[in-house]
């Protein structure tokens, strides 16, 4: 209790406070959805503006989108392999864009200026629900990728070099989503907290380098998340000989 009150009083940071929405029996973290809708709306507007008038000689936004597309394709192709990367590219790309937009949106937009009755707006990826949702989607997709590509032979992967690996490989299926979700959640939350505390203590200049560091981490985390997701899918569809 002491720790709790200390944090809320000392830093004026509302850690672990949420804006609850009650729909029937279920409760939602409203602030997560609010920010994600704003950010994804901006992303979709940006993308529809860029793809509105596509030409063979790209101009302006189309250039940027093509660069992005190429970047995601390279990522998916190197991790998943030439054969099936096409099927998974939209998923990997969506993960990358969602995490990137959420992280950067959380770091760049001064959400704190908007007062909520409870909790505060911030990066959607700083909420454990979001990151677990993403990580579970990754788990489902690598299972689906393995099973749809190799059928029951997918489970050969569990005993691949030797059957001794079986318990470790089973354990991996649990540690993969756990590490994915907690890495993203921890990094983004920690960044928000550090910036928040610094802004509270020294409102001028000092937080700026930390904010830049936060932007850097945010981008890296998006890349790591997408790369690992692609790597897991690639591992599942890889043919053992």
């Amino acid at each position, binding site marked *: *209790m*002491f*720790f*709790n009150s200390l*944090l809320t009083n000392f830093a004026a940071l509302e*850690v*672990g*406070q*949420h804006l609850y929405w009650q729909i029937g029996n*279920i*409760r*939602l*973290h409203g602030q*997560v*959805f609010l920010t*994600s809708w704003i950010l*994804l709306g901006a992303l*979709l507007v940006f*993308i*529809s503006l860029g*793809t509105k008038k*596509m030409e*063979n000689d*790209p101009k302006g936004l*189309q250039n940027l*989108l*093509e660069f992005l*597309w*190429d970047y*995601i*394709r390279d990522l998916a192709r190197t991790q998943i392999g030439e054969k099936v990367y096409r099927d998974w*590219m*939209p*998923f990997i*790309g*969506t*993960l990358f*864009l*969602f995490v990137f937009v959420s992280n950067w949106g959380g770091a760049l937009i001064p959400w704190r200026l908007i007062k909520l009755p409870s909790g505060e707006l911030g990066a*959607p990826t700083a*909420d*454990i*629900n*979001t990151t*677990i*949702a*993403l990580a*579970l*989607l990754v788990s489902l997709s690598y299972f689906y990728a393995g099973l749809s590509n190799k059928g029951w032979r997918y489970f050969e992967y569990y005993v691949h070099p030797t059957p001794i690996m079986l318990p470790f490989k089973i354990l991996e299926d649990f540690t993969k989503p756990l590490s994915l979700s907690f890495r993203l959640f921890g990094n983004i*939350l920690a960044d928000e907290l550090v910036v928040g505390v610094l802004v509270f203590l020294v409102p001028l200049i000092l937080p700026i380098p930390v904010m830049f560091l936060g932007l850097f981490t945010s981008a890296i985390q998006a890349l790591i998340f997408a790369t690992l997701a692609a790597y897991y899918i690639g591992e599942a569809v890889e043919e053992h000989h």
Partner: protein
Amino acid sequence: MLAFNFFGATEGGLFDINATLPLMAIQVVALTYILNSLFFKPVGNIVEKREKFVSNNIIEAKNKLSEVKKLEADLLTQLQSARTEAQRIVSEAENESDKLYKEALELANNEANASKEKARLEIESQTSAARDQLSKQVDDLSELIVNRLILEK
């Protein structure tokens, strides 16, 4: 207990997992489909179309280049054969003219020899005729001298 309250409180807390999770998952899946039809497919189409266009152009250019090289080689061989042909014609003409020259020379030589021979024969016959006449005259003269000598005695 403190930690439990801080992190795992039933109301609020950092690790408060609720219906936000499945709804966020559904939202991300929906976003995947939206981005696929709005971004990945159209941009992919245009980029791959362009890549195909570029690679086709490269292949075409390579084909054309090889064709040009083939034509060049062809031309070179044609040039070579034309050159040898020309050389052959020139040498043939030279030979022919040589032959003609030799023939003409031989003809002229023969003619000259024949006329020389004829002249020689004529000279010879004239010489022998003159010699006959001379010897006849010598005979006549000697007979005259002999007659005269005999008469004087």
